[in-house]
Structures are given as structure tokens and as C-alpha cells.
């Protein structure tokens, strides 16, 4: 009996070995982890790519889809345990881990794949993937720019009208803009006895929305935190003063009572929630996901015809997407863009195939349906992707605006220059400073001093 079993085991081993050597006995696999899409279209596009890849190469793709938060948590655990997949793509890698992994030598250099694509990738997206490796002491390409996001403002046109204003009444200047929403729109709605807040202004420390929004405010005030070599320059008096102004500005919307009290606890989806509930009239959000939900709903067969009709009206007419007002100095505000990065892990069992998979995925005919499957939630990182009629045909009011918004240019996050800023963001030093001002009533200057101390402790 025993000998039979060992014989069988031996045969199995031989079969696996044969599979490795290329014979089609046991199938070669490549392990791929992705974030589960928000919409079915994204997952369908990905599955189509996987299918094509399997047919083209005969390699089986072992694909797992995880929800946004779990995707990164699980990847971190697997990397620490030395058992990562071959390919990983989670939409918060860029915020949390890509830079650190590159620095620690956990990622495979993918320059050979990026090189031929370079001409097509938007330069600002490319820079996010050019990262420092402390082991080789050299910068190189350690990630693939799959898609990106920018800050937008979304508002209910019908609520604006209910408050007694037209869209053309919205000022373009920085202060005028926020005063308009805070005082006039909220005032108008409150006068009608409605328990409504004008602005959805994320303040929760656990939300990436909060640091995204805050850093947008900081950029508006020209508060520079690091230079391109990764050195902290925030204690430069000019930058510090600008940061104080940004903290004051960001806090004022809450202290004036223009954002719901719950915004101090908001997680990422909660400004969306408040917007859909019509608790708020407008919010800033780092994707157009708020509008896209209504696009998704208007085609969702599980809803009743009336609900679909309402969603269609919301998407096409009631909800508007715009860009931020001009900076306080009157210049246009560049878009803070976050590039979503896919990586090949150095410890992956079959990283060679992993690289091949990503090279395949990055082809325009494969990448474009995946990015567009998100209904505009994610933006392309390539020139050819951006040239797609999906963005340029002007038929969709929200995407047309996004396309136009690209023209103000994009700038990267600080962590591109100094990976330790992922930790600064994770701890949300920014929201803490704002909360110090709001809750503990300390002066913004003091809050910024504390912020600088803490940033230096973490990233110095």
C-alpha cells in the first residue's frame, strides 16, 4: 500500500517537473492579485485580459480579487511572510506601500517592460513609478502606471437652484468660492428649514480622502513640503506660512459649520454617502465615483424602472462635476494626481511570467477596456488611453469635464520623492493638525509646528 502511494507521489512530482520544463502535462501558473472593481465592467475587462493571456501563453492565471482595503493588507502580510503573489495591483499601493517596497528591494525592476512604452505613458504618471531602491542605491522603474485619479468637485445642481442660485453664480476665485457655498448656499437652504450642509469636507483621520483634499488645499496655498530630492522643506518660512494658511483655511469650513459634524469620523465612502443622501450640496472627491454610481444605477436591472429613471436624471442633469476654483493667487490649481501602480514582486515564484502578464496587460487594447470599465472613476495614464472617444467625444457631461481638467496639468504626491510620506499620510498628520485647531482650539501656527516635528520624526 505504502509503496503504491509513494509511487503515485513520485509520478505527481514528475508531472509537475514536466510542467515546469514546458510540457503541457501540469499547467504553469502565475499568481495575480487585483483590487475588485467597483463596477462589473472592470472585472469583466480584467477577466477578458486574463482569458486572452491564458490562451496566448498557455500559462494559467491564478487570479484573486480583493476589496480595496483587504487587498493592501493582505499584500503587506504576504510580502512580510515572503510569500507574495507574482503580480499585485491594489488601488492603494501607491498611497501605502509601493515606494517602501521599492526602497526595501521587494519589487522586481521592470524597466525592460516600461522602456518601450515610455513614449505613450503620460510623463507625470511615469514619474510615480521611477523609484529608489536602497539595496542597489539606484532609481529605476519598479511599477506599472495602470490608471490614475484626480480631485474633482461634485454638486447637486437642483439643490443649488433650491437655495436660489444659478450655476453661473458660482465664483471662480478661491475665497469667493468657499464663501459662496458656505454662506449663500447653506444659508439659502437653511432658510427653507432644511437640515442640510453645503460642503462635504472630509476630516476623518482614517480616510485617504482627507489627506487628498487637504493636500489639494496645501497646493492651492503653495505650501511645499518636500523637494524633488525628498528633503523636507516645510520649515522654510515661506512654506510654513503657506501651510498655516492651508490649515486655517481647511479648518474654517468646519468651524463655520458648513460640513456635517460627522465628517470628523468619515471614512472614504462617507462623503459619497452624505452626497447621495442629499445631506450635503457639494463635496470634493478624488474620483468622479459619486456621479458614476448614478450612471451604474441607471443601467442596473435590479432596480425598479422609476429608480433607473431617477438615476438617469441625476447623472445627466442634477449632478455636476467641476474642477476646483483658482488658487488664492489667481492661477489655476494643478491637479494632484495619484497614479495607481501594479507591481511584480521580487519574491514571486513565477515573476518572469508575472512581468509578461503585466506587459500584456499594459497593451492599449487590454488596458483601455479595463480603465474604461470603471465608468470614468479611474483615468488613463497613457496618451492613447486619453485619446479614446470614451473621453474625447464629449457625450458624457462628467467625463468631458475630466478631460478638460487634464489641461491644468497634474503634479505628483510627496511620497513619490520621499516614500516615508506614505507613513505621514497613513498617520494623517494633516488631519491631526486640522483637528488640533478645531477640537483643541490651538493656534494654526502651533498646529503646524507640531506637524513639522511629527513629519520630521516619521520622514526625516
Amino acid at each position, binding site marked *: 500500500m505504502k509503496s503504491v502511494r509513494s509511487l503515485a507521489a513520485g509520478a505527481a512530482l514528475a508531472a509537475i517537473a514536466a510542467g515546469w520544463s514546458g510540457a503541457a502535462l501540469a499547467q504553469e501558473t502565475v499568481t495575480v492579485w487585483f483590487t475588485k472593481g467597483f463596477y462589473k465592467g472592470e472585472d469583466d475587462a480584467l477577466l477578458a485580459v486574463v482569458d486572452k493571456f491564458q490562451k496566448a501563453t498557455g500559462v494559467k492565471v491564478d487570479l484573486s480579487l480583493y476589496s480595496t482595503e483587504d487587498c493592501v493588507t493582505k499584500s503587506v502580510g504576504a510580502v512580510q511572510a515572503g510569500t507574495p503573489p507574482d503580480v499585485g495591483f491594489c488601488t492603494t499601493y501607491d498611497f*501605502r506601500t509601493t515606494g517602501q517596497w521599492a526602497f526595501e528591494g521587494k519589487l522586481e525592476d521592470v524597466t525592460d517592460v516600461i522602456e518601450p512604452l515610455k513614449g505613450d505613458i503620460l510623463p507625470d504618471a511615469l514619474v510615480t513609478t521611477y523609484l529608489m531602491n536602497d539595496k542597489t542605491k539606484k532609481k529605476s522603474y519598479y511599477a506599472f502606471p495602470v490608471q490614475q485619479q484626480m480631485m474633482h468637485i461634485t454638486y447637486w445642481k437642483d439643490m443649488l437652484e433650491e437655495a436660489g442660485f444659478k450655476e453661473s453664480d458660482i465664483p471662480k476665485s478661491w475665497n469667493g468660492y468657499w464663501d459662496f457655498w458656505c454662506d449663500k448656499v447653506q444659508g439659502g437652504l437653511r432658510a427653507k428649514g432644511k*437640515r442640510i450642509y453645503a460642503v462635504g469636507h472630509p*476630516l476623518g483621520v482614517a480616510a485617504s480622502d482627507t489627506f487628498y483634499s487637504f493636500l489639494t488645499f496645501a497646493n492651492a496655498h503653495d505650501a511645499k513640503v518636500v523637494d524633488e530630492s525628498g528633503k523636507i522643506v516645510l520649515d522654510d518660512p515661506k512654506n510654513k506660512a503657506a501651510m498655516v494658511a492651508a490649515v486655517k483655511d481647511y479648518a474654517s469650513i468646519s468651524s463655520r459649520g458648513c460640513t456635517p459634524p460627522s465628517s470628523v469620523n468619515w471614512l472614504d465612502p462617507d462623503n459619497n454617502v452624505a452626497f447621495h443622501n442629499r445631506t450635503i450640496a457639494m463635496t470634493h472627491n478624488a474620483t468622479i465615483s459619486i456621479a458614476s454610481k448614478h450612471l451604474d444605477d441607471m443601467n442596473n436591472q435590479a432596480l425598479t424602472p422609476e429608480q433607473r429613471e431617477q438615476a438617469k436624471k441625476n447623472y445627466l442633469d442634477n449632478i455636476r462635476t467641476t474642477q476646483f476654483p483658482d488658487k488664492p493667487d489667481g492661477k489655476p490649481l494643478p491637479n494632484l494626481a495619484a497614479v495607481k501602480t501594479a507591481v511584480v514582486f521580487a519574491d514571486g515564484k513565477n515573476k518572469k511570467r508575472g512581468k509578461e502578464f503585466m506587459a500584456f496587460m499594459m497593451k492599449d487594447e487590454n488596458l483601455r477596456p479595463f480603465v474604461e470599465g470603471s465608468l470614468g472613476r479611474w483615468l488613463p495614464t497613457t496618451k492613447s488611453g486619453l485619446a479614446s472617444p470614451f473621453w474625447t467625444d464629449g457625450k458624457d457631461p462628467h467625463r468631458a469635464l475630466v478631460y478638460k481638467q487634464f489641461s491644468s496639468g497634474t503634479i505628483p504626491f510627496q511620497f513619490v520623492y520621499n516614500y516615508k510620506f506614505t507613513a505621514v499620510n497613513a498617520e494623517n498628520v494633516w488631519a491631526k493638525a486640522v483637528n488640533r485647531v478645531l477640537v483643541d482650539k490651538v493656534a494654526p501656527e502651533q498646529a503646524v509646528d507640531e506637524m513639522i516635528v511629527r513629519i520630521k520624526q516619521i520622514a526625516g
Partner: protein
Amino acid sequence: MTAATMAAPAPPASATTSGQARDRAFWGVVMLAPYILVFAVMVVYPVAYGLWIGLNWQSYRALFTDPIFFRTVVNTVIFLFVAVNLKFLIALFLSGFFVAQRAWVRIVLVLFILPWAVPSIPTILSFRVMLNPETGMVNSQLFQWFGIMEGPGWLTDPTLAFICSIFVHIWKSLPFWTLILVTGRLAIAQDLYEAASVDGANKWQQFRFITWPSLATLYVTSTLLSMIWTLGDFNSVYLLTGGGPGDLNHVLATLGIRYMRNNNLDLGIASIIVAMPLILPMVWFMVKRLSKGAE
């Protein structure tokens, strides 16, 4: 503490043959083996591994420079002190209510233990939704009845949010400890009370001289046990407020998870090790107490 004590049995009479003795020794080891395996793999190894990671001196420096850490320690102490004492005072009081000989009181008791009988996730999330400042039932009702536009920031005001998580903790664990004290009270002989009331003792005197002396040991043991578990209460804080607003309301049980979520596992381990001087003496004391009771 409540186990009936048994005279320690004399070793089996010499009737056992040496073969039987060997058999007993063999099976004793074999039958202990599954637990020893579980214990070694799931407790000893992780703890040793954790301690090894915890040897990194850097983590403690980082931990002590984190402003949230100090705040968390203070929170934990306040949480422990207020939650445990309040809970036991209420439990002591309510145990007096539940020993009343009424059929309807028994029905109230059945309902009263619901918080303990149902899992904490749905109920704590129910609190969370109910206390939402804008759409929650409580503030919506305040607006509807009294026109209060900005009701209390139950979960958004740091102090109030902290108080709420203490109350949620008490809500969840009160029934259990009340039941324990009810059983303690039921064990007291009724004729003591009858004799006392014949002697003209009032309710307070009855409590002071009969109830309390009989309950004191149980009360103290339970308080200690409850302290240890309150220290480990993750759900009441994490599911209600996530430690917010502004990470101001963490306790030691949630802090480790916060660090882990921020990719800082080493700090998470360090924060746990730092809590050990608080926990281990209590655990040691309780182990002695419980194992003595059990022999």
C-alpha cells in the same frame, strides 16, 4: 471560586498493576497531546515570535514619540476604571432587583440578557448608525420634536464619543455580570434575611451585614476578571468609533490594530508588550485564585 471542593483523592489503591500504571501514563500523555500541540503552535510560537520582534528597541522609541500612544494609555486607564466600576455598581444594584420573587421579573431577566446573547457586531453597528449626527435616529428625533438642528455630537465630539464607547461596553457586558451576582445572591440563605427583619434591620443594614459580606469575594474576583477582559475589549471601541475622532479615543486593545493597518506591525507588537506589565500581574493573580478554587 464556586467549584465544589473535593477531598483530593488518594492515589488509586495498590490494586493497579504496573501494566495498568504504564497504560495510564501513556494515555495521559497521548490525551494531553492535542492540546499541547494547539498550545505550542497557536500560543507559544506566536508569543515567542512576537517577543522576538518586540526586542527591537527602535519600535519603543517610535512608540513613545507617537502622541497618540500617551493619549491611548490615559484613555485605557480611564476606560478601565470608569467602565468596570460603573458596570459593577449597576450590576450589584440590578442583581438585587432580579432576585425579586415575581414572575414578571423573570420575563424582564430573559429580555435583559439579550445584549449578551446576541453577537456584538450587529448591535454595536446599530448603535453607530443610531448615533450618527445627521441621519441617526436619535438626532433626527431631536430635530423633529424639538427643532434642534445640531444635536449632540455623540460620536464626533471626542469626550462624548469616549463616553459612548464606555456605555456600549457596559451595555454588552452588564447582563453577564449581573447574572453572576444574581447567582451569588441566590446562594445566600433566605432565613438570614428573615431573622434580620424580625430584629428590625432595615434594607441598608440587611445589605451591609448580610448581602455584602457574602458577595464580597465574588464581587472582587469578578471585578478583577472583568478588568482583564475590559482591557481587551476591541469591539466596543473599534466598531463604534474606530478610535476616532482623530485617533483620540483609542485604547490599548485597538492601538495595535491601528498600527498594523498602517503597515507598522512592529509598533503594534511593541504596544502590546508595553501593556503586559498591566495585564500579567492580574492574570497571574487570577490563575492562582482560580486554580486554587478548582483543586
